[in-house]
């Protein structure tokens, strides 16, 4: 099957430091890919290159048939990425909810502004999405009144509003108190069961093991190993993956 997300020879350099050193990745529709790796390995940068929060220095990014090349003019890159962003949702480590808008206001903002949807229609979709993440009763609350876990679930609902073909999760539980991690992962598991294509950067090994179709292990700006979770966690092939897992399991 034709992949819905693909990168070829993706390179990202900040000044002279290469953070991504030629990434080839293909994600099929409906697939759950978890990206693991030590901090600074380029996981987040890879994710951010997919929707243009970082632009590639070289190589190709293709999402849902929209292609961005590293050697395109910046203006064209930006225009293509704007198309891509309309078809991808992103969830951030720090939630990044709009503090001046209610939970519902956060969810429907892109519908109103980007899709120019009539308010009544947007509100209906927004309420349904908040219900889906278990926050039907928090529609009118501002983010400052919500717990971290609730905020992140609102952020997921917000990312779902544009009916994305792909959801990108950038360490969605890393900023949460341990007791709040579960509720966010539950929503993500539900989303996975509903058939959403998901690329998840995380340190939650249990989630990776249970929910992922495939684990991509990165180190030092390169994909070192790709495997099904069972195989990756039981018998990682590369030495670096073995070392990484040993360190994680020690905690």
């Amino acid at each position, binding site marked *: 099957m034709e992949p819905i997300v693909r990168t070829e020879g993706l390179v990202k350099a900040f000044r002279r430091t290469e953070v991504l050193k030629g990434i080839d990745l293909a994600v099929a529709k409906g697939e759950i890919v978890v990206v693991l790796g030590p901090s600074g390995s380029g996981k987040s940068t890879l994710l951010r290159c997919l*929707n243009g*929060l970082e632009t590639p220095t070289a190589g190709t990014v293709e999402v849902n048939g929209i292609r961005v090349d590293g050697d395109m003019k910046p203006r064209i890159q930006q225009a293509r990425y704007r198309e891509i*962003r309309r078809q991808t*949702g992103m969830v951030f480590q720090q939630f*990044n909810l709009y*503090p001046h808008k209610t939970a519902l206001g956060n969810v429907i903002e892109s519908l109103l*502004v980007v899709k120019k949807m009539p308010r009544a229609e947007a509100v209906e979709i927004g309420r349904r999405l908040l219900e889906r993440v278990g926050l039907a009763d928090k529609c009118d609350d501002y983010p400052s009144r919500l717990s971290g876990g609730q905020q992140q679930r609102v952020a997921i609902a917000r990312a779902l509003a544009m009916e994305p073909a792909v959801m990108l999760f950038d360490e969605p539980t890393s900023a949460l108190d341990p007791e709040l991690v579960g509720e966010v992962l539950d929503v993500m598991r539900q989303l996975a069961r509903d058939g959403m294509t998901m690329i998840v950067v995380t340190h939650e090994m249990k989630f990776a093991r249970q929910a992922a179709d495939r684990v991509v292990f990165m180190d030092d700006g390169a994909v070192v190993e790709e495997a099904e979770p069972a195989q990756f966690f039981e018998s990682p092939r590369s030495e670096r993956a073995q070392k990484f897992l040993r360190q994680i399991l020690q905690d």
Partner: protein
Amino acid sequence: MWMDMDLLWKNLDFLLRGAGYTLQIAVVSMFFGFFIGLAVAVARLWGNGPVRWLAKAYVSVIRGTPLLVQIVIVYYGLVDFGITLDAFTSAYLALSINIGAYLSETFRGSVLSVPRGQLEAAYASGMTTWQALRRIIFPQAARVAIAPMGNTFIGMLKETSLVSVITVTELLRSAELLIAQYSVYMPFYLGIAFMYWVMSTGFSAALQYIEKRLSRAY
């Protein structure tokens, strides 16, 4: 001195008219200064090289020279270039340009105070830069800007007294005309000081009200 106080009451109409001009000059200059400030802040934040340099130079020159000098340059100096402006126009122009420079810094700082993640979240949801600024960044920046902006406005209200040197009959010059006529100082100076105070306080109260309303939301 105290028996001269009735001179103040007798000339109250005249002074109140001066106060009216003071208020008028302040409000008009703030109005135009506000938009100059916005434009210059945008130029400094998102302009290309030359635009940014120009905006920076403007702010540096205006903040680095006395307002009084700016006023006399506009009124007397521009005549040398064949531009003759009447006193009121000169006052509006000089004060707007001045207040615009200060406000641009306020606006720039308040935009920069909004966390980077806000813009990223807006981008990630498909917004253009302008949509993100208008819907997400500016509303949050406005809340930060309102207090320093109020200070600038109150400062400006008092600095309008400087345009008395170019023959605008605002509050201070009204008093000086009366002083020349009666040869008594204190009643008039005290009278206008009180009027400035009332106007400043009224301004503060109005701004506090706006600030409260803006922050009530979240």
